[in-house]
């Protein structure tokens, strides 16, 4: 059983005990503990359950690579699932809950699946659950889904805050170990802007744990001195608890800062988006487990993790710890344990020739070292009771039972190459060291084609302290163009070459292989990889996907190289030929809320408001989202149904006068000597001939010849036009104009400006519109002074205004544009002056009904990106005299001039009902695929308060040639609605009211 030592622990403060709970049990740890350290200190080795077989698991690592000790932290809306106990900083009152078990961690029913493990090797689910067909959906999948998953998603909205920022740096150092700090120091001294990110709460990485002096100082003191120096420099930013998790093309680097931890205030997470000239990958290396039966038992840990717990938190994994290793480093653990008074019954070294100087020192301490030996299996269930020691190259038979309650294992180290590889950096297999390391000849390159990253220290495969520092020194000097220098002085320890193993013991049979775990969380064993190879899943990517190796939350940090070694052996090929799977961001899982950032709730796509928004809101407007805007849909009076309000508003416009907030319509100023020529290209009609003072309706198409927007263009001056667009189209059309000007007609003298928000625009529509404007006074709006499709400037009621005589309702109508800030005053004046005229504000739905009664199209209703101007009956709009315009060639193609196309008509239901929008007219015929043949559809449909019946617009095959024909519209429930093809203009066909 693990326990807390009576003394030591470089990171804990024994004077500050902290209370916390685990599965409801109260426990105590110390300030500076991680949750895993505190649990181990309290004697808890059982921390979780594996994904597939629900096997009991304890912490195997001490850092971000931990696959087993995943827990829920907190409760309610602030709960976090799948937190790695090895990196969670202990806090007073912390609530930890184990996951993926029922009813509790010790008595998990799910572990019964382990009994059937032989039936459930890798990919078993591809071979079964096939019959009966319905069972997958109704039985198998629900059961599998319930058993799968780890923690529980919290319920309710996240109450925490997240923040994002941009930063720029010449050099970003990812990793604040000694190599990273030395690299940062060199870059800082050279005057570069430097940011150093360290994922842990403390600096220095592994060196302070080992305790070897650096630069003549104890490692801790050297780290402190570097930090003090760096912190004092204005060109350096230091951030602990900040993990670089992604390095993207062109040096775009992402880091997650956990501001909310360690008693910090402010946002819970901060996302750093950094443009880095050079990224120094100084992320260290991950130790690898060894593949032997029972290597997943709680109490079996990575050797360096054991050392971390011992030195950093004064926690020992057990009273007697067996060590098994393929490299020299684990001897440090053995000696540290022995030095702390923990019994080390044996150090099993796989290498027949044993280890180097460290092994000799261990022997000198009196430790039993067995060369060429391994652990054949671990004894025990939810904890370790002993191990069986056997020859590493044997089959595991015989062997010597050794009592112990923990195991420290080391299968060598894997450099943390993730950041190097994510943007495409290549790796090389270093056979001597048994690891994949960054290949400097295949560095990821930036926009200039030059390397944008350099890996240093352990991340570059230089595992020893002296070599790591020397490597960082040499690499940084080279890349920064500095003269040669000397790295900080350290002692050198010669280490014997490591040995990797695909299975221990090497000739073990299936029974042991089926208990030797590679991917702990996903329960992938040596036998699974071998099965994958046997079945032809020999590509490393296939083996991964078939067995799920490396797909757990640690993304293969512990398992990948071991799995590749097994695959290589099974295939009979060398490791480098197998290769690695693709490294993808993020380096460690990152909180999604932090990636979403501040832009949530009201800041998520903020609502755009017209100057009159407040007025609408105060009158209880029903809103309609249109693009980013909210527009008033209707203004129901108290107790009035929305549909009734719409009808009332329509009748008010037809009978008296109505006001519409038209401010959202796009208003794009187009100016310059070539403005007319430009608009002639943009619109299907002619704009260059429009006289100053006049307005013209225009339709725009894309290159394919399909309608994309429409609106009224006013010529303000000889070189100045104001183009109105649809509400949703304003930004898109402005972008469209710029795209053409910047990429095709870059030599034309045209400038565009999106003025949409600069103006409030109010439509005054209805037979009393002129009377109302005359009451405001200041401008002559008589029929003679301002006929239809003219505009004029002046002052209305003292407010500077531009008045357009245009109509989208079919009534006498003026649209008045004033400065945005004058909008509310003008609106209030119109309401006040028009009170006795019955002036009525109307919303977008009344506007839709009014325009439909008049047969006006709406882009997006009558059009959907497949409709041409001809389809809409707008062929007269297409200027015949123009040499070219956008869409001209597109609309001449065979299918677009096919006389059989669907064209705009009106539709009148035989019973006067409102046809469902989107309904299709179908014939009785079926096409070759068995589908009903259609011949038209309803594009818009309303109840017309003016005509007291339903009206609709639609597109119908050869529609205008088929006036009076009755079409059949199949509807829900087998009903068939009948509607007659009619003219699309239902109201005031001759336009007398409009021109009034």
């Amino acid at each position, binding site marked *: 059983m693990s326990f807390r030592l009576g003394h030591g622990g470089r990171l804990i403060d024994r004077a500050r005990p902290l209370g916390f709970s685990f599965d409801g049990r109260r426990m105590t740890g110390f300030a500076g503990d991680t949750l895993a350290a505190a649990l181990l200190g309290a004697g808890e080795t059982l921390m979780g359950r594996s994904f597939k077989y629900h096997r009991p698991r304890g912490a195997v690592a001490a850092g971000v690579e931990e696959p087993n000790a995943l827990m829920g932290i907190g409760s309610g809306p602030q709960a976090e699932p799948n937190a790695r106990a090895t990196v969670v900083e202990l806090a007073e009152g912390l609530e930890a809950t184990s996951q993926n078990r029922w009813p509790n961690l010790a008595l998990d029913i799910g572990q019964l699946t382990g009994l059937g493990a032989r039936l459930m090797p890798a990919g078993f689910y591809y071979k079964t659950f096939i019959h009966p067909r319905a069972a997958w959906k109704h039985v198998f999948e629900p059961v599998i*889904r319930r058993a799968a998953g780890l923690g529980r998603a919290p319920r309710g909205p996240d109450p925490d805050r997240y923040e994002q920022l941009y930063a720029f740096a010449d050099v970003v150092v990812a990793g604040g170990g000694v190599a990273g700090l030395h690299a940062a120091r060199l870059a800082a001294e050279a005057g570069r802007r430097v940011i150093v990110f360290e994922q842990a709460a403390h600096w220095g990485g592994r060196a302070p744990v080992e305790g070897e002096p650096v630069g003549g100082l104890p490692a801790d003191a050297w780290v402190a001195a570097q930090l003090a120096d760096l912190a004092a420099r204005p060109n350096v930013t230091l951030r602990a608890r900040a993990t670089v998790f992604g390095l993207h093309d062109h040096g775009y680097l992402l880091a997650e800062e956990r501001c909310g931890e360690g008693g910090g205030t402010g946002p819970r997470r901060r996302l750093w988006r950094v443009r880095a000239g050079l990224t120094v990958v100084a992320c260290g290396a991950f130790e690898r487990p060894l593949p032997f039966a029972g290597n997943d038992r709680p109490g079996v840990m990575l050797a360096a993790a054991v050392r971390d717990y011992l030195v950093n938190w004064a926690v020992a994994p057990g009273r007697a710890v067996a060590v098994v290793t393929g490299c020299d480093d684990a001897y440090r653990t053995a000696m540290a344990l022995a030095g702390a008074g923990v019994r080390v019954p044996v150090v099993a070294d796989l290498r027949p020739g044993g280890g180097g100087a460290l092994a000799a020192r261990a022997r000198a301490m009196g430790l039993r070292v067995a060369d060429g030996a391994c652990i054949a299996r671990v004894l025990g269930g939810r904890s370790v009771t002993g191990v069986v020691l056997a020859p590493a190259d044997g089959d595991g038979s015989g062997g010597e039972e050794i009592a112990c309650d923990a195991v420290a294992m080391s299968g060598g180290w894997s450099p943390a190459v993730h950041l190097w590889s994510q943007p495409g950096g290549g790796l090389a297999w270093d056979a001597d060291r048994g690891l994949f390391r960054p290949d400097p000849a295949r560095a990821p390159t930036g926009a200039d084609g030059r390397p944008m990253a350099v890996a240093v220290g352990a991340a570059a495969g230089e595992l020893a302290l002296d070599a790591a520092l020397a490597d960082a020194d040499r690499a940084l000097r080279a890349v920064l163009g500095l003269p040669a220098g000397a790295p900080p002085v350290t002692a050198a320890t010669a280490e014997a070459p490591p040995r990797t193993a695909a299975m221990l013991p090497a000739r073990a049979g299936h029974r042991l292989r089926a208990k030797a775990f590679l991917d702990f969380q996903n329960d992938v064993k040596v036998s699974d990889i071998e099965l994958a190879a046997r079945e032809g899943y020999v*590509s490393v990517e296939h083996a991964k996907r078939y067995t799920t190796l490396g797909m757990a939350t640690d993304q293969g940090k512990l398992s990948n190289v071991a799995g590749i070694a097994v695959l290589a052996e099974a295939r009979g090929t060398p490791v480098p030929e197998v290769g690695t799977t693709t490294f*993808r961001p993020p380096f460690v899982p990152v909180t999604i809320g932090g990636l979403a950032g501040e832009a949530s709730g009201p800041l998520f796509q903020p609502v755009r408001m017209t100057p009159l928004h407040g007025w609408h809101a105060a009158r209880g407007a029903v809103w309609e989202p249109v693009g980013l805007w909210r527009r008033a849909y209707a203004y129901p009076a108290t107790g009035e149904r929305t549909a009734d309000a719409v009808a009332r508003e329509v009748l008010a416009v037809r009978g008296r006068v109505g006001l519409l907030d038209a401010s959202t319509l796009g208003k794009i100023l187009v100016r310059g000597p070539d403005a007319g020529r430009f608009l002639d290209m943009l619109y299907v009609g002619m704009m260059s001939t429009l006289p100053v003072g006049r307005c013209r309706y225009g339709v725009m198409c894309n290159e*394919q010849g399909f309608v994309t927007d429409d609106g009224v263009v006013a010529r303000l001056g000889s070189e100045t036009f104001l183009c109105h667009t649809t509400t949703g189209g304003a930004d898109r059309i402005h972008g469209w104009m710029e795209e053409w000007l910047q990429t095709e007609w870059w030599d034309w003298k045209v400038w565009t400006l999106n003025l949409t928000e600069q103006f409030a625009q109010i439509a005054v529509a209805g037979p009393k519109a002129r009377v109302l404007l005359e009451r405001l006074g200041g401008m002559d709006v008589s029929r003679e002074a301002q006929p239809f499709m003219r505009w004029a400037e002046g002052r209305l009621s003292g407010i500077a205004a531009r008045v357009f005589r245009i109509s989208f309702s079919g009534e006498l109508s003026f649209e008045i544009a004033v400065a945005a800030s004058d909008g509310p005053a003008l609106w209030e004046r119109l309401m006040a002056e028009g009170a006795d005229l019955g002036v009525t504000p109307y919303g977008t739905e009344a506007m839709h009904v009014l325009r439909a009664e008049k047969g006006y199209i709406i882009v997006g209703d009558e059009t959907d990106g497949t409709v041409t101007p001809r389809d809409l009956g707008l062929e007269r709009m297409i200027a015949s005299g123009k040499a070219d315009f956008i869409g001209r060639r597109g609309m001449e193609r065979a*299918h677009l001039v096919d006389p059989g196309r669907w064209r705009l008509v009106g539709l009148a239901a035989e019973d006067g009902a409102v046809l469902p929008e989107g309904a299709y007219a179908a014939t009785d015929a079926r096409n070759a695929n068995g589908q009903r043949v259609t011949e038209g559809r309803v594009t818009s449909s309303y109840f017309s308060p003016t005509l007291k019946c339903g009206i609709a617009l639609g597109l119908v095959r050869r529609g205008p040639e088929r006036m009076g024909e009755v079409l059949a519209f199949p509807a829900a429930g087998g009903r068939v609605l009948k509607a007659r093809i009619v003219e699309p203009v239902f109201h005031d066909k001759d336009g007398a009211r409009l021109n009034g």
Partner: protein
Amino acid sequence: MRRYSVFALAREALRGHTGWGRAWGAAAPRAAYDAVIVGAGGHGLATAYYLGRNHGIRNVAVLEKGWLGGGNTGRNTTIIRSNYLQDASAAIYEKARSLYETLSQELNFNVMFSPRGVMMLAQTEHEVKGYRRTAMANALQGVATEFIGPDRVKALVPIIRIDGPRYPVLGALWQPRGGTARHDAVAWGYARACAAMGMDIVENCAVTGIRVENGAVAGVETTRGPIATRRLGLVVAGHSSVLAAMAGFRLPIESLCLQALVSEPVKPCMDVVVMANTVHGYMSQSDKGEMVIGGGTDGFNNYSQRGSWHHIEETLRALCETFPVLSRLKMLRQWGGIVDMTGDRSPIISRAPVGGVFVNCGWGTGGFKAIPGSGWAMAELMARGEPGPLAAEFDMFRFREGRFIDESVAAGVAH
């Protein structure tokens, strides 16, 4: 082919699963085949499978430059639906969906087709109209969909935020028989069935040239030697333009990077697939418990399979608004794939300007759902030399004539 079943599994359990053979052989290419298909992704393998099954053409090689199923088949978000607006699309996607329903039994390989239901949220009045229209079109096309109100949406997806604030959910287009499948298994299942028919699936075999004689294909050059054939199918998604160039013609295709990501696994919290086109995001929960999330495509062409980061942020922002529980989960992995986009966002299943060459590409962001139907139609085309009704409208010459099959019409991005 060794039949898969729980009994076979039990027998193998007794001997340590040592008796399983390869799912598909490691074939070396032979000198000539009746038909050669380039690209061992889902579409290529399905084409080969139906060539054998429906048309008796079994002297077939499927060439793969890397590892089988390693392109978009292994990178997508596994959504299967057929609620398309245009007749031609609805026909082929519904064919595919219906083939998916029995694919596990057909291939004797559990592809885990899970008809859990797909919903497309309507969050503006415009979308409500669009999806009502689609539902009415689907009814005439024989595709079972319905427009449901916000209460049904909430009942089906309890974790959804229905009342906005930004874009309240106004309803959804609901296809109860849409769902997901295990993407890799689809490729593996087809590969195994093809191998069982005697076809050669040749991995690590890149096509480096296409031999054309007298305007017709004579064979291909590969990194594993020349292979003669008179019938060549190019089924390589994002790299279609590259292969077309080898045969001397051009395709109206742009290749863009589309990204996806998964969260860490959590216990089941969402049973259906939800697509939210107004805010550009879609999500489902895998059987493992990961939230599987997809977003928008990059705005520029590339082949790097690494997309622009801001899409990830935008997608997650949108989905956190829609599903607030997402905020405290963690992103586990993000990746990109190269999608081949046509001008109308609909695929190409077509004869090429070179005799004997057939092209299947342009599936854009939504090819996985189409795999069985696409293979069915492509096999018909390759076997007969002319398209059947499923492929008839998807020829590559439609762009010249303006015969678009435009699906961007009804929905927004996700397709």
